[in-house]
C-alpha cells in the first residue's frame, strides 16, 4: 500500500476459492480416510491448514506486498511457539 504505485487488487476471489476448496478437502480427508495412520493424517491436515493460514496472511493481510522487515517481524514469534510446544511435549 505504502509504495504509492498503482498495483491492481490482489486476487482475493481466487484465494477465497482456494481456501474454500482446501476446507472441503480437509473435512473430507478427515472423515473419509479414517483408516490412515494417525500420524499421516495429522501431517496431511496440518499441511493443508498451514497452507490456508499462509494464504490468509499473504493475501488478505497483504504481507506479500509489505516491506521485508515487517515480514520478519511478523514471523518472529513462530520459533518461540514451536520451541515451547516441542520441548514441553517431550516431557510426557
Amino acid at each position, binding site marked *: 500500500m505504502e509504495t504509492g504505485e498503482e498495483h491492481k487488487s490482489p486476487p482475493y476471489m481466487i484465494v477465497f476459492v482456494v481456501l474454500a476448496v482446501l476446507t472441503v478437502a480437509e473435512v473430507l480427508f478427515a472423515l473419509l480416510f479414517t483408516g490412515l495412520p494417525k500420524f499421516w493424517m495429522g501431517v496431511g491436515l496440518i499441511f493443508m491448514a498451514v497452507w490456508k493460514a499462509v494464504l490468509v496472511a499473504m493475501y488478505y493481510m497483504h504481507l506479500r506486498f509489505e516491506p521485508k522487515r515487517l515480514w520478519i517481524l511478523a514471523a*518472529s*514469534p513462530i520459533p*518461540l511457539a514451536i520451541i*515451547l510446544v516441542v520441548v*514441553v511435549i517431550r516431557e510426557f
Partner: protein
Amino acid sequence: MSTTEKDIASAVDAGGQHDHHEIPWIRKYVFATDHKMIAKQFMFVSLFFLVVGGALAGMMRFQLGFPGQPMPGAGILPDAMMAPTPNGAIMLPEFYNSLVTMHGTIMIFFAIMPLLVGLFGNLLIPLQIGAEDMAFPRLNMASFWLAVPAGMLMLASFAVEGGAAGAGWTSYAPLSTSGEWTGVYLGQQLWLVSLTILGFSSLIGAVNYITTVINLRAPGMTWFRIPLATWSLFVTAVLILLAIPILAGALIMLLFDQTIGTGFFRPEVGGEPLLWQHLFWFFGHPEVYILILPAMGITSEVLSNRARKPIFGYHSMVLALISIGFLGWIVWGHHMFQSGMNPLLGTSFMISTMAIAVPSAIKTFNWLGTLWKADIHFDVPMLHALSFVSMFIIGGLSGIFMASTPVDIYIHDTYFIVAHLHYVLFGGSLFAIFAGITYWFPKMFGRMMNEPLGKVHFVLTFIFYNLVFFPMHNLGLQGMMRRIYDFTQYDFLQPLQPMNQFITLFAFALITTQLLFVFNFFWSIFKGEKAGNNPWKSNTLEWTVPSPPPHGNFAEMPTVFRGPYEYSSPESDDDFLPQTTPPREGPGPSSGVPEPTPTPEGAEA
C-alpha cells in the same frame, strides 16, 4: 481491540498539532497523555509499592529472626494474620505464606517492573530518540490506568476472607488451584485477576514502545545511534510482548481451575501440574530479563557519562542485549531441574543456561573496559551504577552454581536461591533504579537531588544490603529451605538462628535507611538546587531540552549526527559532544542524512 480505533484519532493528534496550551488540570495530572507525566505517575505508584514490598519483607524478617515471638505493634493486625497471645501477637504460618507471596509479587510486578518499564520506558524512549511523544499517547494512558486497579486489587486481597494469596509468587499448581490446600480462596483469585489486568497493561505499553522506537526516531537517529537505555527498553518491550500473553493464558486457565472446576493443572482430575510450571517459567525467565535489561541500559548510560568516556564496544553491547533477550527463551527449564521434569531435558537446559553467561560476560567486561583510562566522577548516580556492576557480578556468578544441575539438587529451594535473586534484583535492578532516578531527577523535576544526603544513603544501603543478603548464601549452603515459616522446626537448622537474627537486624537497618531516600526525594522536588538543561554534560537528546521538558518535548525537530557516547572526543573542546551538534566541517560521510519517509497517517502518497 476497541482501543485501537480511538487511536486513529490520537495518532492524528500526535501528528502535528501543538495547540493544546490550555490543558485542563484533569488531563494534565490525572488522565494525562503526555509521556513524561505518565512516567511520573508510574514512578509515584511503584515507589509506593516498593515501600509496601519493603514493609512486607520487614515483617517476614521479623518472623525469621525471632521465630514464634510476639511482634511489637502487630496487635493491630486482624486475628487471621497474627494470633493474639497474652504477650503480644504472634504471626500465623498462613500469614507468613501470604507475606512471601505478596512480597515477591509486589516487588517484581508492581515495583521493579513498572519502575523500569513504566517510568524509564515512558520517560526515556521519546526523549532519547527525539520524538515529541509516544506513537499512541492515549494507549499509554490506558496502560497506566489499567495498572492502578490491578495494584488496588492486589492490595485488597489482604483484606478479604482467607487472606492474600499464599502459594509463592510462582503459584505452583496444584497448591494454587484450590483453597482446600492453602486456606486461601478469594485472595488467590484476586491475585490471578490482578496479574491478568496488569499483564494487559504491560502489553499495550510494549506495543506502544516498539512502535515508537521503530517509527518515531528523529532524522539521523539510526539504529546504531540509539542510546543503550532505549535499546534495552526496546528489547525489553519485545520480551514483554511475547512473554506476557503466555502468562495471561496460564493465569486464565488457573483461574478456571479454581473457580469453575476445569482440570488443566489439577492432577486429581487428570491435569498436569508441570504444565503450569512450564508455562509459568516460559514467561518467568524472560521476565527476569525484563527486570535486568533496562537496568543494564541505565547503567551503561550513567557509566559512560560519569566516566566521560565512550562506552566500550557499543555494537557488541547492543548485540549482547539482543542475544540475552533471545537466549532468555530457551533456558526456562533451569527453574524446574528438581520438578520431576524429564531429566534428559535438564541437561539441555543446563547447557543453554550456561551459554547465557556469555552475553552477560560481554556486558560486564565492556563496563569494566569503559572505566579503563576514564575520568571517573563519583556522583550519586555513578555510585549506584558501579554497585550495579559489582553486585550483578555476584548475582550472576551465583547463577552459575544453580545452572549446574547436580549442585542445584542441593541448593534448589534454599536460601542460596533467595540470595541469588536478591543480588540480581536488589543489587542489580534496584540499584540501577536508584542510579536512574538520581540521574534523570533533574530532567523530571528541574532540580538536583541533594548530593551529600544521596551519598550517605548510598553508602549505608550498600553496606546494609550486603550484610543482609550475602550471608543468605551461607544459610542456603547449610541447607536452610526458602519459604519456611519457622526453620527452628528442623534440628539441623537451629544453629542458624544467630545468623538469621543478624540478617534481620540489618534488614531493619536497610529499610530504615531508605527513609533518607524518601526524604531526599521529596525535599529535592521542592527545595533542590535548580538544574540547567544539561547538568551532567550528557550527549543524548533528552538533555538538549529544558528541564522539565515542555509538552511536545522538542521545540524544533532535532537532527542527529553521531552516536550517543562521544565523550572526550578530540573533535570537541569540552569533554562531551552532543548528538545534535553538527560536525565541524559539513556532514561527514557517515552522518545520517534522513531517508524520506511515509506520512505518518498512512495516506497514499
